[in-house]
């Protein structure tokens, strides 16, 4: 049973790379913490895509399993991070991440 496509592995990797870099770019340019988290999700998806692609290359389930672990990680991260966002919005009355710089050395 195949979907009968024939894509070079590099192409999928390039797609994952581009998505990852878009996410990284987003993290770097945005000051709003919600957008940063959103970009982070994008980066994680790109990683998952690379894993699934590598798994598909050998027709093994391991790639998908790694994707599921990333999924669990993302879910945990989002739960805590959004809790922090809510706290940040309350304490500083802003979502500007540059304002929350009290943890500097």
């Amino acid at each position, binding site marked *: 049973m195949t979907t009968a496509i024939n894509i070079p592995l590099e192409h999928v990797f390039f797609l994952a790379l581009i998505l990852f870099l878009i996410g990284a770019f987003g993290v770097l*340019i945005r000051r709003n913490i919600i957008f940063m988290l959103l970009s982070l999700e994008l980066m994680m998806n790109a990683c998952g895509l690379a894993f699934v692609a590598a798994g598909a290359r050998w027709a093994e389930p391991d790639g998908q399993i790694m994707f599921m672990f990333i999924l669990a990680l993302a879910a945990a991260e989002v739960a805590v991070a959004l809790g922090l966002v*809510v706290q940040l919005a309350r304490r500083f009355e802003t979502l500007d991440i540059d304002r929350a710089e009290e943890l500097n050395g």
Partner: protein
Amino acid sequence: MSVWLFYIAAGVAITTAILAVTRKNASHALIYLVVTLLSIAVIFFLLGAPFAAALEIVIYAGAIVVLFLFVVMMLNLGRSSVARESQWLRPGMWVLPAILSGVLFVVFGFEVLQVENSAKIEGQVVPPKEVGKVLFHEYLLGVELAGVLLLAALVGAFHLGRRYLEERRET
């Protein structure tokens, strides 16, 4: 046909990803993100990973992004925040990240091209049953650890959220 579908989906994913990252309105950005995720799900399906595709839609697009939307709505980010975003997103700030990303793209791309040339994905479907078997045998420890991680996140989120509620009750 399927091959074209892949490239179309890839184009959609990249476009919407760029849009999601650069939008000023959080709700719009999240909707674009959903589209990105859906197109990635299509790619997963094409690659022969239907289970991953389903999870992508159900959990990522369905649960996680909706959680984002909830928070955006709860914080009530209206017009003023859009105006503030355009203030924050000055072009001058883009230069250094763009350069860094570009250099990373070149180096990463160079690495990716080192992969053996003949490697093709034939789209052999790995059904959920097989995924489940391996997941609960070889990766059982990983599953347990993921469970612990989720529990910790649950406790952490509950803790953070509860303090917020209590403070609000006092005021």
